[in-house]
């Protein structure tokens, strides 16, 4: 049987997810033995832009028109496209420009020079699925490499990728960490998708929400808890709008909380 053809592509980001693939040192040679990597510019010189792909692994976000064209071309020749890391899944930290005036932000960094390239007409960072269809997403910053290997195995065996349905809290409890809320601090683990093994809390630091919102995340309750802990609206926004501000639930947390309050208030009054 022919080996499955895989392309690994990096768009705008820190290259951390591609690096995590190279950081699979123990099994890297086994992986490259099991699949046919036809495109991986960060690691090899001979890259093939024509062959149809069984799997395309996409890192990074789309910030230029050229990238938009390129990702469409990749999509056209690919059976299964997987977005890895927060840039590909949510637009990354660079998505934070969405709360700014892009022209002003550009001027702040580059001054008045008229740029010849894409920067001349800057765009806000976009997640891959804002441009083309994505078949699977593996968020986290950087992606969890073990999760990537599992996903690759599933895809190549024709199985569905198993995405955990619960919040980071569950993993954190299993790891025996004392809850940050119990210690009087704010943590994003309550509303964030699990799968990292509660890595930050296990390292003494509250979850920063880098895997994005868990399904049915209770945003109003989280906002309420943050307020009870003395956080201002600016503080609350800073907590939600960090690595995954591309997730609408996180970008609009205060508004969601406000709307929920407005809906609940008349019912409360009836009681």
């Amino acid at each position, binding site marked *: 049987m022919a080996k499955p053809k895989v392309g690994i592509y990096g768009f705008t980001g820190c290259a951390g997810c591609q690096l995590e693939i190279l950081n699979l040192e123990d099994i890297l040679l086994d992986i490259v033995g099991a699949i046919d990597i036809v495109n991986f510019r960060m690691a090899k010189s001979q890259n093939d832009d024509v062959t149809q792909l069984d799997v395309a692994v996409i890192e990074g976000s789309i910030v230029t028109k050229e990238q938009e064209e390129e990702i469409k071309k990749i999509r056209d020749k690919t059976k299964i496209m997987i977005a890895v890391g927060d840039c590909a899944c949510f637009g990354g930290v660079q998505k934070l*420009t969405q709360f700014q005036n892009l022209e002003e932000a550009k001027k702040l960094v580059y001054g008045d020079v008229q740029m010849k390239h894409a920067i001349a007409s800057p765009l806000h960072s976009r997640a891959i699925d804002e441009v083309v269809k994505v078949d699977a997403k593996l968020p986290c910053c950087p992606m969890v490499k073990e999760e990537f290997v599992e996903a690759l195995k599933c895809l190549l065996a024709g199985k569905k990728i198993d995405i955990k349905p619960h919040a980071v809290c569950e993993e954190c409890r299993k790891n025996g960490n004392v809850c940050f809320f119990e210690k009087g601090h704010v943590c994003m683990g309550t509303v964030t998708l699990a799968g990292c093994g509660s890595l930050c809390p296990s*390292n003494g630091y509250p979850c920063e929400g880098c895997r994005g919102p868990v399904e049915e995340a209770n945003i109003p309750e989280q906002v309420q808890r943050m307020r009870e802990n003395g956080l201002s609206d600016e503080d609350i926004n800073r907590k939600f709008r960090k690595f995954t501000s591309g997730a609408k639930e996180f970008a609009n947390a205060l508004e969601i909380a406000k709307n929920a309050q407005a809906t609940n208030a008349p019912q409360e009054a009836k009681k």
Partner: protein
Amino acid sequence: MSENPNQLEVHHITRVEGHGRIIIDVKDRKLEKVELNIIEGSRLFESWLRGRRLDEVPHLVSRICAICSAGHTAAALKAIEDASGIHASETAVKLRDLATMGEFIQSHTLHMYCLALPDFLGFESVIAMAGKLPNEVKLALKMKKLGNDIAQVATGRAVNQISMNVKGFSRVPTKEELQGLLAKLKEMRPFAEKSCDIFAGLNYPNFQRKTEYIALHTPKEYALYDGKIKSSEGWKAPVSEWEQKATEQVVAYSNAKQGVRNGHGYLAGPLARMNLNQKQLLDAAKAKLDAGPIKFPSYNTFHSNYARAIELLHCFDKCIAIIEDLIATGAEKGKVDYKEYALLAKKFSANKGYGAVEVPRGTLYHSYAIDENGIVTYANVLTPTAQNLRNIEEDMVAYLPQLMDKTREEICHAAEMTVRAYDPCISCATHFLEVEFKD
């Protein structure tokens, strides 16, 4: 290839981190112009960092570049602590030093074996090379992993640090973890020594061009975590003057700013460090250098690869020394309970601070201004790759004319190799490399 007959184009420079392009203009077999275009999409970090709280900055800027995330974290921490008057404990500094040293081992091994060596031995990639040199590739991957393990034990994650924070560490490594690293370092050390011999024996292109070399320097040790700015032109300056000393020039054809001094490029990175600081190397690395065939100062950019090998051995011995010290004195003193970050409520004086560290590709500078609530009002980052871009162009302008009788493919390959010698990290400078050749 470009449609213009006077333009030869190699679309992507590969085996570098990120996306860029080189345009080479040739007329009648004479080199007219070289431009290094960084066409990577910009992420505008310096704009949206404004408005963030100071303790968030290290985690956010670690995302500038995965390969040197610990370096970005360290430079940001130093700048923020300078601005806010917060002091990190001595043990915390040792742990930071250890984390960045692990990153050197990871990054240098990755560049030397996976990205550069295939050029010198005629392979398309490390994957192709693994078939012919399985033992070397396996050992190199093991050494790279050890670098990651060091950073991971010290900071919670090899890529994008977790526990390395303002004032100290939210978690510190256990004695057992440190002992585990020590055993691995000692086991792997012979290969670090052998790497010096392998990279001393490569057939480097014969190309000499003296430029200005700039690195951190301290008489106390081979400056990586701390030091003053030192130039081969004889001047020194405190890190707080970096914004005046190295100006970044915005060029219209590139999304990365270029480091320029008095109208010319300068070189940051392993070659600059070796040219300026070889006397401060630890004994074993110094002895290797003394016994080897290549001497510093060297004005051959391709000798950067040999400089990396010597630094690798230095970093092994430095890591061993730090870990032995931490085991003896206890890493616990580097810990800061998250509660102490309730300094968030504390009032600050509005102030500006500066920080610099050496990262694998050269000196990395950060500076931030904060207001009285600890909110960032100004951010500036100067990465080594941005500093090197002008110098890379100047190298190609000097080197490529020697090759005008070669084929287009050979010229393009030489241009790519010149760029790769700097191990550019284009995510840092923004991100990608393409070669476009006009003739």
